[in-house]
């Protein structure tokens, strides 16, 4: 799976149902599902949550996994993505889980290897498994027990995504998936991190510069980290940013006292949100991490059992 664009409500339902089934399955039984199948994790960027949960997911299904990261591999010596992919394929990999700093890299890898590729984050573009685990978290709170979703499941729900939208692949995957299930996405942030044209990015998306107004509309608040590694020379006044967009206990209490607070991580305490909010009762941040394993088990399983190329 390369993009949230592939996710119709039917597909999402299948994935959510499978995730729950696998999560509830006896671990020994589950480990026979992909016993000794080979899956490569190819990571050109650092990662804690995504890498670990994909690895645990694959291993939970019994697969052999191998991790290739840009440091400590021939990538350092100048090997191209195409050649690294073909090498992994020759080693018996049946699917590749790719994280890469260049937008679109999974498409290149799929074209060149003809293997199922799971996009674990490509540049500023997409992070579809994150969108799915975010969805599972949201459903758990707003529509408990629901695994069958339709275009109306999240009707009436507003999700405020705040912070560094411009550089965020999480924002882009969520802005596609959430409106497909009926939710409204409100992007919030300063112009430098959220261009006006984001409002034209698809149906159900709008831009609100005022954070408190955005909070007031939202049942779900997703906070994003400022991606220092992608700012490309952009100078930001962090104090000004915090004044405008930091999620504090006071703001939360005043404008969104019942909203669910989420964050794809890594969180920077004291910047986009305070430590008290991260650890507070409205926070579902660790719950998101937890859902990652079940979702990724479902994605890995589908990738290796789907008919034809690509999951």
């Amino acid at each position: 799976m390369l993009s949230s664009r592939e996710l119709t409500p039917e597909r999402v339902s299948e994935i959510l149902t499978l995730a729950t089934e696998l999560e509830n399955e006896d671990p020994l039984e589950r480990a026979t599902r992909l016993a000794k199948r080979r899956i490569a994790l190819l990571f050109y960027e650092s990662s804690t949550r995504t890498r670990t949960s994909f690895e645990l997911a694959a291993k939970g299904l019994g697969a052999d996994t191998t991790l290739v990261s840009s440091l400590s591999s021939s990538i350092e010596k100048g090997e191209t993505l195409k050649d690294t992919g073909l090498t992994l394929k020759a080693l018996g990999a049946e699917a590749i889980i790719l994280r890469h700093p260049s937008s679109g890299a999974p498409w290149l890898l799929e074209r060149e290897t003809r293997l199922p590729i799971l996009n674990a984050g490509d540049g500023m573009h997409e992070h579809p498994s994150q969108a799915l685990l975010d969805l599972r978290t949201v459903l758990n709170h707003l529509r408990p027990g629901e695994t069958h979703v339709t275009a109306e499941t999240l009707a009436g729900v507003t999700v405020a995504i705040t912070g560094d939208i411009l550089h965020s692949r999480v924002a882009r995957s969520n802005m596609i998936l959430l409106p497909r299930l009926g939710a409204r996405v409100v992007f919030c942030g300063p112009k430098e991190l959220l261009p006006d044209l984001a409002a034209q990015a698809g149906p159900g998306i709008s831009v609100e510069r005022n954070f408190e107004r955005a909070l007031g509309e939202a049942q779900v608040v997703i906070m994003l980290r400022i991606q220092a590694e992608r700012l490309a020379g952009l100078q930001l006044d962090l104090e000004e940013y915090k004044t405008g967009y930091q999620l504090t206990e006071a703001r939360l209490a005043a404008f969104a006292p019942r909203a669910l607070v989420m964050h794809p991580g890594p969180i920077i305490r004291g910047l986009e949100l305070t430590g008290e909010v991260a650890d507070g009762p409205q926070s579902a941040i660790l719950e998101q991490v937890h859902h990652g394993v079940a979702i990724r088990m479902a994605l890995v399983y589908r990738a290796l059992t789907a008919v034809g190329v690509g999951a």
Partner: protein
Amino acid sequence: MSTILIKGGHLIDPASSVDGLRDVVLKDGRVAEIAEPGKSSLGKGKAGPETTIIDAKGLTVAPGLVDIHVHLREPGQGHKETIATGTAAAAAGGFTSVAAMPNTTPANDTPEITRWMQAPERGASVRVFPIGAATRAIKGEVLTDYAALKSAGAVAVTDDGHPILKDSIMREVLINATRQGLSVIQHAEDTRLTGGCSMNAGPTAFRLGLRGMPPEAEYGLVERDIRLVTELSMNGKGDKNGQRPHLHVAHTSTARAVAAVRQARRNGLRVTCEVAPHHFLLTEEHVGAYDTNAKMNPPLRSAADRDAMIQGILDGVVDAIATDHAPHAAFEKEVEFERAPNGITGLESALGLSLRWLHHEWKLPLGRVLSLLSAQPAALLGLRGRGMLAVGSFADVVIFDPGAEWVFRAKDSRSKSKNTPFDGWTMQGRVRWTISEGRVVFQAETVG
């Protein structure tokens, strides 16, 4: 040299406004005669055995095409293209004159390199007109020797992909080029606004997570250059010797850049521009799933910009169609979109695309299309005797079947590289013969 009689064809020569059945006699590399059908000195069986007779019945006979913007990659980048392969592709596309950009390795910034590019050892099929670097090593700092470049055969100066940003340097370039009677070609891109960018700025770039080049990076520099030309043109009267600078804007891609050129011309300035087929046919949407064959600089723009290119061609503000033929090896393009080099090939698809779209679809008269591909670009760079078929001009001819539809296949290209977004596109107007200075340099295999 042999004699060629092209008989029975429909001659279209925009430069002399001929549009009708004519026989054409080529002798010693020049056009010797243009006559009513059967009325030439070689007509009615008077041709001797040394005369090659080309039966052009039902075909269009036109001046060999002129592409003023190609990258032949030599010296130094022979894995992408050589002068031999690039000009073979030109011949297959109906081109008999190509102006080669100086961003080679090393850059063409000396008369030695300029001469080397034109030497017979390069094995060129068609005439190569080198364009000299405007500054040493195209670094935008120290001017090259324009007099020496010109006497070695350079027809213009440019720093092409490394636009000259400093006003003071650009002013100096314009002054010195004007003194030598050379045109200044600018690849208009304010690179201070395009760092790390790999496509056009806008909703598509946002959606794809790619950094975008804002249109103002192009038109901003065009407007700056026109300001400089205005200052140096002394209100259209030229400098004290009556010489006026000629600014040519390469591969125009934004509506505002075309508008700026239009206004400059109304103000009596010598400002010209070219448009590449991909900019009048494709939009940023063609990047699709990160197709590196849709990556070039300037990038594919919005539909509104694309429409402005078509409008500019139809209403005459655009002076030439130029391909920006930019070959890259397959391995160089099989990489992440952001890392892929800019550029696509264009020599073998330009005529077919122009005839299909500009002529058949948008109803630009055939003569106008051919003029944009021959007479106008030749005049623009002062290529005497090129882009026209009058007695005495060079025997550069393209003979094509104007009605033939065919499918362009990148794998069949004569270019060393196959990086084109037009693979599999239907073209109109199949080239049957290309003649360069009296030599047949291309002949279609399926002639029958």
